[in-house]
């Protein structure tokens, strides 16, 4: 449910949460022949009742995969929210881990091994990867830099905090660019400011002003990296990258290798995810219940007492036959806008993502 409501946001957070949930599922797993209570397993797999039959050749791996893990994932993806590339890759890893188990292992052993494997994956592919990315990025931050970032990226936050600790909070400034309707940047800028870093907060429409005058480097996060080097990230990122490029400012995209997708996507619409269109239509500035603002009130005399959002003129868009409201969540930044991609392996040009993919998955090469 946390996925659907948006409480869990961001590629890393979603992948971590999914893997943690699967660990719980595995711990609670009981084979079908066990008498009585399968309710735990049933509940976590979304209410689907376990198969009653017990085949002669019971293979724990097959059972785990087909009865528990795959249905759970499908349920999440169809009922809650489409999965991110990071979740998809983590899920593929989990299936491979299950398939790689020795078929004669006991239940307790299987559970222990799987839980350990999941922990190792989170630790290596996310935690340690972020540390490595932070170290590589630190070599590109020099005193006097004005660093721009967009939205709220987990790994960018890590690398900026680390750099502030290492080089001193006064050695660089940060500009956080934010946009409606999610306004994710507010949380990031709050945390960075608390760490003592000098921060500026702007909305996307002020981008060209700061970009031309002050910015020396741009650090961006990514939801996924396509094999041709283009970057899938929060909607608005492509504009930031384009603006930086045209002002000759280096754009560094920070992305752990587990987010690399072997898909090639040519434009932003395919496979994108749509959010709630009403979020776009409403006035986001009233979200915190800061009522009494005069902008919203105006001529029609509607008061904004309490937490009531001011209704915008197109809030009845559903009744208008030729009006559509689009709230896309991701966009694609072409490889040409990206000066370098920082992964745990080091800094690479965007054109080398395919090679990295090949080196990581030698078994997939024909």
């Amino acid at each position: 449910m946390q996925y659907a409501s948006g409480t869990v946001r961001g590629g890393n957070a979603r992948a971590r949460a999914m893997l943690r949930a699967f660990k719980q599922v595995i711990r609670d797993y009981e084979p079908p022949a066990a008498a009585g209570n399968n309710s735990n397993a049933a509940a976590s797999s979304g209410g689907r009742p376990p198969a009653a039959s017990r085949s002669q050749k019971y293979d724990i791996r097959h059972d785990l995969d087909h009865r528990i893990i795959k249905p759970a994932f499908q349920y999440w993806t169809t009922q809650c929210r489409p999965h991110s590339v990071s979740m998809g890759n983590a899920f593929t890893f989990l299936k491979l881990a299950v398939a790689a188990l020795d078929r004669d292992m006991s239940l307790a052993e299987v559970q222990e091994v799987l839980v350990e494997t999941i922990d190792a994956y989170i630790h290596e592919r996310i935690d340690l990867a972020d540390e490595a990315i932070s170290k590589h990025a630190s070599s590109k931050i020099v005193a006097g830099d004005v660093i721009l970032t967009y939205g709220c990226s987990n790994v960018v936050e890590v690398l900026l905090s680390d750099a502030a600790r290492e080089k001193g909070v006064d050695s660089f400034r940060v500009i956080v660019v934010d946009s409606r309707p999610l306004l994710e940047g507010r949380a990031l800028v709050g945390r960075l400011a608390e760490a003592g870093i000098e921060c500026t907060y702007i909305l996307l429409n002020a981008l060209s002003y700061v970009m031309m005058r002050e910015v020396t480097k741009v650090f961006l996060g990514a939801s996924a990296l396509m094999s041709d080097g283009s970057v899938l990230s929060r909607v608005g990122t492509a504009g930031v990258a384009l603006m930086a490029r045209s002002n000759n400012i280096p754009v560094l995209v920070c992305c752990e290798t587990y987010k690399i997708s072997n898909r090639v996507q040519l434009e932003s619409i395919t496979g994108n995810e749509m959010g709630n269109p009403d979020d776009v239509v409403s006035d986001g500035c009233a979200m915190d219940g800061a009522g009494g603002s005069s902008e919203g009130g105006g001529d029609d005399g509607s008061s904004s007492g309490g937490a009531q959002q001011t209704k915008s003129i197109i809030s009845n868009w559903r009744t208008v036959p030729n009006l559509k409201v689009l709230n896309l969540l991701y966009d694609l930044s072409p490889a040409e806008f990206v000066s370098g991609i920082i992964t745990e392996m080091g800094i690479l040009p965007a054109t080398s993502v395919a090679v990295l993919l090949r080196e990581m998955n030698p078994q997939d090469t024909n």
Partner: protein
Amino acid sequence: RCHLTGSTAASPTSIDPEHRTAVALPVAAIKSLLGVIQRSKATTMMGLQEDLRGATEEMMTFATESPGSLQLLGGRSHIALASGCELFMKYVTRAFLELPDFAACIAQVLERGERFAGISLAARDRIAEVGQAFIQDGQTVLTHGWSRVVSNLLVKAAEHRHFSIVVLEGRPDAAGAKAAKVYADAGIPTTVVLDSAMACAMESADLVIVGAEGVVENGGIVNKMGTYGLGIAARELGKPFYVAAESYKFARLYPLNQSDLPPMGPAAKLNFVDTASWEMTGGLVGKAKAPVNTDKDGKVDASSVPGVVQFKPNQIKVKNPPCDYTPAKYITLLFTDLGVLTPSAVSDELIRLYQ
């Protein structure tokens, strides 16, 4: 150390008629490292790596900070030196992974290392072989700086085709003048122009060929100051821009822009002179109009040359970095001993080499 100073046989002060056989600085460094291996008392790979790393650091310090470093590096950067040593270290580590027996591994490394100098010369020939095809009869080649790789390529190409060369003068070390002499001696019609004439000369050129101090991870190059401008002019006027470089120059650097280059040691002093270029040690390339004064070391007193402008100490700032960075997008192709590569293929090679 004697290996390093020995390689100044191709030093700036004399045109070695056998420049073909002169050993490149990184190759001399590798020979030194081989010597370190031979004399090392280490019995484990870790110990040996310690010795090698220490020796490399000493060499780099010597090359960049010692008083003679200007002559040693010839006003160029130490990037090729660093990358050559690093690749050699990687090679030694990998050899150990294949042959865990320490003694046998060392024997193999030494044996292959002995061939390395030969491999380097062979690399230049291979580069000449692959690069020649890109120069056609009747064309004009624009080049910059002094590079044994490029001169080998052009001289060899001239054996089969007729083309002419335009050389940028190459201040402040008169690198272009040196190169022009070599080409003229080889019978190739050669023209020298001012460095500032590069964009103007680009119009009548058909292609550009330069060498590289280092090839960086994104496929760009670090080379003598002026290469970046040449690249921009070439792209703007639609002329192909080729780089000739051995694969040991592939460095693990990722410059984002000009200010993101590593520090390159002491900059050569600029003398503001009206006549032809001066070499950094003060020797004459052009002719002075009047007799000049030399001090007791044989160095020419710049103020005695007509047209010299002299400033009071700290009156102005002078910046003279030896190298600039040319991003990959200005480079058409690279001619290397691994074959003809596109700039994006360089990173692929580096991933493989540093796996």
